């Protein structure tokens, strides 16, 4: 294992981390403010990818495609909030889990009806199609660098939004005491809808950025959703800062484990055994990480209502 390879894997970990952050930020905002567990968050990721894959070729530009897809996904999110989820806020978490799981099935079927069962192709913009040599000897896919840039930019934007704006103040107030916020004359209903739309748009952005790397297909949101939940459990429910730290931690640990474990095990056992076992251990590492973090801090690293 040489240094260049380690640098490259570090970038890979960072890239996976910021992708997870885009997903986790929206999910944790919705949880923190509305106390709502939304399993259908992965569906917005899928819808973002499908909308981008539809509009990017139509407008002949990936960036324009994303810019059209995001507000549409936010509208879908707000519509879902108004039609389906609004009635669930006062119900128990188990009811919310069941209802939003139903929404997953609904959206998967809807996508199948609209776009068909086959995976569809989405390419990165031509100017991001190649590789960049960041340091000599490490060619890195330009599109993944762009993902890192966009993810970090969104993190800054969310930080400023939450700490420096009136909307952010209301979001924070809603998270700590919604009755009081309502009593002060704030339209809490509208605030919830807006936050939900923001969360949906963030997930859609993650989906749009994932589209050119991954397959745009029905059910693509589910596998990423599990990782996202791991991230927000590690980071602490309801905290955007926790989501960022948790996402980077999970991205880094997952990537490094997949890269290093088989090599390390090869030192102590025959290669074929080491490869199989390394793979099994690597897919467990983030759950081991989660268990370790929860044993140390049962409410996650940065719980919102500490």
């Amino acid at each position: 294992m040489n240094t260049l390879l380690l640098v490259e894997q570090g970038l890979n970990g960072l890239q996976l981390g910021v992708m997870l952050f885009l997903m986790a930020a929206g999910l944790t905002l919705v949880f923190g403010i509305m106390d709502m567990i939304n399993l259908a968050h992965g569906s917005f990721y899928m819808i973002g990818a499908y909308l981008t894959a539809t509009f990017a070729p139509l407008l002949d530009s990936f960036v324009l495609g994303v810019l059209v897809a995001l507000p549409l996904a936010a509208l879908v999110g707000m519509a879902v909030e108004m039609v389906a989820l609004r009635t669930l806020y006062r119900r128990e978490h188990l009811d919310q889990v069941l209802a939003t799981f139903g929404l997953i099935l609904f959206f998967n079927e809807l996508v199948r009806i609209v776009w068909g069962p086959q995976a569809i192709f989405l390419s990165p913009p031509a100017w991001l199609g190649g590789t960049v040599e960041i340091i000599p000897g490490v060619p890195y896919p330009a599109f993944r660098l762009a993902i890192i840039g966009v993810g970090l930019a969104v993190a800054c934007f969310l930080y400023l939004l939450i700490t420096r704006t009136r909307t952010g103040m209301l979001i924070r107030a809603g998270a700590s005491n919604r009755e009081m916020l309502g009593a002060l004359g704030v339209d809490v209903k509208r605030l919830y809808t807006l936050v939900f739309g923001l969360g949906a748009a963030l997930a859609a952005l993650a989906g749009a950025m994932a589209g050119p790397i991954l397959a745009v297909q029905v059910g693509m949101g589910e596998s990423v959703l599990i990782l996202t939940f791991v991230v927000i459990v590690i980071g602490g429910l309801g905290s955007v800062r926790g989501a960022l730290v948790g996402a980077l931690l999970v991205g880094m640990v997952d990537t490094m484990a997949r890269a290093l474990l088989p090599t390390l095990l090869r030192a102590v056992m025959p290669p074929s055994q080491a490869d199989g076992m390394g793979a099994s251990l690597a897919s467990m590492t983030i759950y081991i990480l989660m268990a370790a973090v929860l044993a140390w801090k049962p409410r996650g690293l940065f719980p919102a209502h500490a």
Partner: protein
Amino acid sequence: MIEGDDQQKPDIAKQLADRMVERDDVDVVTGIIWSNLALALMPSLERAEVFFLSPNAGPSQLAGKQCNPFFFGVAYQNDGQHEAMGQHMQSQGIKRAYLMAPNYPAGKDALTGVKRFFKGEVAGEVYTAVGQLDYAAELAQLRAAAPDGVYIFYPGGMGINFVKQFEQAGLKGKVPLFGPGFSFSEDSLPAIGDAALGVMNTAQWSGDIDNPQNRKFVQGFEAAYDRLPSVYAAQAYDTALLLDSAVRKTGGKLEDKDALRAALKAAEFKSIRGDFKFNANHFPIQDYYLREVVKDDKGRLTNVIRGTVFEDHADPYAAECRM
């Protein structure tokens, strides 16, 4: 014709099979894609003496020790395409190969199939989590290992993701990529895009096999569905032809199980893949072709044959089958 959706779940497949056998009194079951599902419903079908014509799944268990008088694998034994590519890589003089598959039984079987015919050095044998989406870490390791060729067994979405990321990592053109035909079938090629161009893969069928029945199939499929047929479609079509031939041969008397079995085993139909006959274990003896991904005259990605790797290839498990 009675249809059911197995939802890729063995328990649901078994329930459906039980219902079709007991309530609907069917004579033949077909259509399962996944090997674990096929294995799950065989006990019910055997007990009820109902035939299962598999248009895809061909697990080694059913080809060897657990071979079954009511099972016919019409597509291939699962190792076939991997063995063919192992043979091709061997004949290409590849010295150091990198092998990658998901970490589950079929993944291990696939790489075992490759190694049965590829005798060079295995520079790395990498198993990844089933359903893994991002292969960035593995691709960095792959570049560092600098092998002469890489063989991937990644079905469905995993394969689409891997091949796209392989190109984005700048590895395409530097390390030759090899894989089984179903990873580069016409149903997933549109989602992979140009990253798949030029990839060599092995399969028992290709759209450009030149015989009248295959031309009729490809044209008919395109006219009906407005896209190119994949190996899966071809296998299912052959399964229908086989069933048709057996029903004709028995004069429609499907109650006589032995006569129906003999008619199926005779396989008197013109397969669209060319040479085809059943081995003693009810698995095909057939040719395997080397295919390359190209663009057709309408700009669509598809496969064309570049050579024949195996002629009349039989699977290695048939000797263990007692039937």
